[in-house]
């Protein structure tokens, strides 16, 4: 039996006024896959992730996630998603615990206290749980954002430049977490400029340029030098 498709995009176009950010994206991703999207600034990576996250509506095309239409059945898609970007989506005047409690209540999670303790343990912030988030360092805030992302057991993780602003410790935590979630059959889509880390984590890679996916393939057998050459061929 073949693995079911988690993400299906067909002819996705996105206009912002006269600017076309996406020019017909076609993409299929199987459940449990980890896809790295690489591309220069302005390639439309963030727009693509925002459409997948139901935060933006495509101007044309089909977006299906776990069999649901992400435009018409967005309320069914949202609980399946965990989104991590370089902005944390956290409230500085609330403590780490209160932030997670807020998001947990929004998702209607049961046994919230135990789950919060579990995710804080994963990101190594248990000691600082009752400290206001605005007193956290950038790295700690990003680690808490990781806890927020995985709090509601997402099935599809969307990571937009997840390493931005992270210290070494936090990068290693995030990588461990991605590997762990990947091993638990969580589907992951990550946009990053970090070719080395992206290649290391992802089992599929895509290169996006000027609003189109110009290359998609398996990362198996590719080394960083080979990938850099491939990247240059399509991007420059």
């Amino acid at each position: 039996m073949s693995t079911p498709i988690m993400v299906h995009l067909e002819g996705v176009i996105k206009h912002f006024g006269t600017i076309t950010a996406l020019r017909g994206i076609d993409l299929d991703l199987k459940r449990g896959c980890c896809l790295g999207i690489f591309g220069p600034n302005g390639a439309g990576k963030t727009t693509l992730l925002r459409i997948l996250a139901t935060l933006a509506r495509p101007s044309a095309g089909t977006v299906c996630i776990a069999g649901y239409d992400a435009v018409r059945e967005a309320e069914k898609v949202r609980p399946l998603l965990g989104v991590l970007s370089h902005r944390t989506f956290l409230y500085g005047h609330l403590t780490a615990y209160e932030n997670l409690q807020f998001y947990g209540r929004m998702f209607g999670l049961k046994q919230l206290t135990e789950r919060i303790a579990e995710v804080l343990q994963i990101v190594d912030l248990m000691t600082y749980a009752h400290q206001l988030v605005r007193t956290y360092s950038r790295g700690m805030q990003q680690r808490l954002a990781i806890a927020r992302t995985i709090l509601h057991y997402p099935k599809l993780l969307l990571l937009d430049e997840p390493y931005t602003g992270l210290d070494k410790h936090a990068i290693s935590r995030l990588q461990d977490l991605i590997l762990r979630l990947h091993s638990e059959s969580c589907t992951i889509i990550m946009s990053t400029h970090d070719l080395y880390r992206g290649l290391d984590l992802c089992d599929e890679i895509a290169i996006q340029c000027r609003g189109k996916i110009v290359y998609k393939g398996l990362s198996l057998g590719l080394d960083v030098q080979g990938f850099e050459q491939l990247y240059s061929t399509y991007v420059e």
Partner: protein
Amino acid sequence: MCKDSNSFIVLMSSSKIFLQQVLALLAKDLKTEWRTREIFTSMFVFAVLVVVVFNFAIGADTELIRQVVSGVVWVALLFATVLGLQRAAQMETDEDSLQGVLLALHDRSALFVAKMLAQMLYLLMVVICTLPLCGIWFRIDFIARIGELCLTFALGMLGLSIIGTLFAMIALHTRACEVMLPILFLPISIPLIIAAVYATGQLIDGKSLKDISDYLILMGVFDAVFFSLTLIIFDSVVED
């Protein structure tokens, strides 16, 4: 029959989630405000300053005071609302938290309802603190007509909160958010403010509820129309 009962279960479950999310959002906003007191302080200080400035401008002419006091109170509330909304909007944009909230919402109008209720509570606090000061400075007995005034203020504050929240969310998606909010909000609020000023003024003059019923109906219709309209369009308002 079975289809009907299934629809009813879905509706009940959706309503429960909606209420749960409204309460979570409201609790978060109030907790943050309790810690910072930024929104209430800015709104209250501004409202008091408006009242003080008018107090000096009008002087001691008792008849003139009676004529303009309702206008002074509502102008103070109107501009205080703009200040409160700007601060509340900034809280959601600081770390792009609004995006996180949108990702968690089952029905996005829960965000509108929660923000509107929070704004209404801030306005209520401002009215509770400002009205006694107005009574003292302008020598007006608001207590004598407290019941009727409560109804008038409730309708007026509800209207300001509804359109304020709607336009604050629209303005958030524009570059010059702080300029756009008053430009969008103030003209639309004019019918509501006119009705509120006349209703309050006539109550101060000793008129009965029946005499001001037209104004109250106008305010009620304004609130109902904008509330329903916002519930319908809010999903598009918060989307790119």
